[in-house]
């Protein structure tokens, strides 16, 4: 049974800015589903619609067979939502926030302690501290506890790791895995491509459109080109020169390096490319064939869509 079923959802703000265009998605029960895309792609709009906070202009959405618009009251009982910005009461303590949301969901802390225990253990030493005085990572963990306190069937996480340090990010993803093992469907959005590989399936979203849904490995397998990384101290001049490259290739800066995806038979292309670099005084640095990451795949898909 699919947990979330989205059919042809549209959303336009102020009658002109199209945030979501004909979104169709299906999320299976018990999977960690990632929504990956740059800022402004429409991730939060989709989350707000799924969590009954925003009405779509058209289309149908059902959660476990319940219509998100018509049956919003029953939908609210089965979803947990962690918004993109911290939105618990900063002037209430950790314990008070948790108590409050437990009652809001007609549940109690004791009832679902087993579910939140791994996270609760980490924040319970600060349970009398005001939520507003917690560190970023702690805030997220508390928010997660509050979103899980009623044992939802689906957990929506809108960019839960944005602005969180790498260690906490890793911890957070470990927690998500353990939540999944409790048969809770997780839908998570992130602008970080490296996190996307930890999902069961990911949907790439850009300009309000879904441009591919697949498990991370499939996405990587579907990479069409042959990817190389170019390491050099002078990426800038290299990038300028690559503009004139006669070969069918796509290049972009990637961290401190430059990634180049070739769509050629490399046996003949590589010597030609090396010669091209020599002609333009770019023989410095070294070229290495690498495995594409999800980000490379995303860039490729975006480029081809354009």
């Amino acid at each position, binding site marked *: 049974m699919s947990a979330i079923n989205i059919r042809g959802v549209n959303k336009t703000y102020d009658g002109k800015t199209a945030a979501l265009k004909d979104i169709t998605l299906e999320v299976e029960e018990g999977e960690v589903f990632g929504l990956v895309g740059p800022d402004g792609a429409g991730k939060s709009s989709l989350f707000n619609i799924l*969590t*009954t*906070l*925003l*009405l779509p202009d058209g289309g149908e959405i059902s959660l476990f067979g319940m219509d998100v618009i018509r049956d*919003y*009251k*029953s939908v*609210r*009982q089965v*979803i947990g*939502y962690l*918004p993109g*910005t*911290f*939105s*618990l*009461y*900063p*002037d*209430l303590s950790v314990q*008070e926030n948790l*108590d*409050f*949301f437990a*009652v*809001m*969901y*007609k549940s109690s802390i004791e009832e679902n302690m087993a579910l939140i225990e791994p996270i609760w253990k980490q924040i319970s030493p600060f349970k009398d501290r005001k939520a507003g005085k917690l560190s970023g990572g702690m805030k997220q963990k508390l928010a997660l506890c*509050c979103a899980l306190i009623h044992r939802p069937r689906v957990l929506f996480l809108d960019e839960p790791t944005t602005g969180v340090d790498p260690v906490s990010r890793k911890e957070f993803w470990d927690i998500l895995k353990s939540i999944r093992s409790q048969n809770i469907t997780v839908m998570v959005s992130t602008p970080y491509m490296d996190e996307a590989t930890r999902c069961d399936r990911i949907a790439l979203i850009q300009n309000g459109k879904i441009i591919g849904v697949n498990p991370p490995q499939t996405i990587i397998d579907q990479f069409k080109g042959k990817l190389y990384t170019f390491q050099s101290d002078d990426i800038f001049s290299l990038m300028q020169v690559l503009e004139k490259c006669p070969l069918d290739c796509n290049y972009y800066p990637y961290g401190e390096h430059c990634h180049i995806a070739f769509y050629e038979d490399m046996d003949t292309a590589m010597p030609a490319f090396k010669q091209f670099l020599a002609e333009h005084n770019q023989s410095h640095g070294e070229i290495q064939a690498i495995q594409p990451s999800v980000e490379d795949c995303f860039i490729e898909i975006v480029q081809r869509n354009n």
Partner: protein
Amino acid sequence: MRTILILIKKEFLQVFRNPLLLSILVVAPMVEFMIFPFCADYEIKVLNIAFIDNDRSQISKDIIHSFNSSNIFVSKGLLTSKKEADEKMKHDKIDLLVEFPSHFEEALYKNESTQIAVTANAINSVKAGIGTGYVQEIIGGYMQDFAASHTPTGMSTAMMQQEMMKEMSKARASDDRRPSIVMPTTSVVPQTPVRINISNIYWYNEQMNYKNLIVPGILVILVTLIGCYVTALNLVREKEIGTIEQVNVTPIRRWQFLLGKMIPFWLLGMAEFGAGLIIMKFVFGISVQGSLPLLLGITAIYLFVMLGLGFFISSVSENQLQSMFIVLFLFIVFVLLSGVFTPTEGMPEWAHKINYVNPMSFYIEVIKKVILKGSEFESVMRETIVLSVMAVIINTGAVLSYREASK
């Protein structure tokens, strides 16, 4: 039920953890009660008066003298010219000028018509009005005595006063700053001496004590502030910090949420009102003449009107600044039209019509009637019904305008 209780608990926790809000709730009423009633006073205690006596007769001297025996007027002496008086009034040295024409006394004895000119600085129109009223009273009183002691022919006192009123209404303005009032005095020698003594008795506020009007007014302001201001800021703050989203995704119903917010502020409002009543009794010695349960009951209804209004405002505004401006605007309109501190009797008809939708004007009526007059339910029934209807309408509006999902 459990849901509403935790909402109430949460609200109280937040109020008591917000030192600023708490101090506003405690200090603001104290300051309003301890300062305002002592300085907001329409009573004119000192009027500086000067005279131009072109007659220099016994009568004019007597009249001037009679001003000295009044404890309101401070005589600034005799001036010689209109120009000098003008200069003094410009510099606020004098508030009133009384000018006797030449042959004033002679005219009186000859039973001819003569006039005393009273000029008042009308920058403060209340002061000018009250001042000329006092002058009229003193001169009128003197004339009455004069008429009584000079029995022969002439006009009756009553007639004279009638004549005086007529002339008053024709008051001529010497310039727009200082309208002057010309008072006719005729030789006042009634054929049959009729003595009419008018004595004023002020009911429900025997000493005409302005505190009796101001203090209940402050009670009204207090209840309105708690009801409207604090709630309008509260809900919109949840919008600003995003907690409202987190609450909206829970299965809680919107009426539960609003009720959970209203009850704490309703309780706070009632507590403030109770504290106000205690201060009123023990500091100002004004005790509630009417029934206390009636007063509390109507206050409870009025608070619901204000809470509903506050929530309505905060659900239509996006941030605290917006809602604050809307509340401030409404508050000023309410106060100025309602008759809390100013009489409504002089207002034009259209302003009275606006007051039909001004909850404060109904509530102040109740407050004045029940506290000062000791009115029973029958005489405040109309106000109670209107306030109840308002409470229902505005709260329905608040629930409807508070949208869980945005479009």
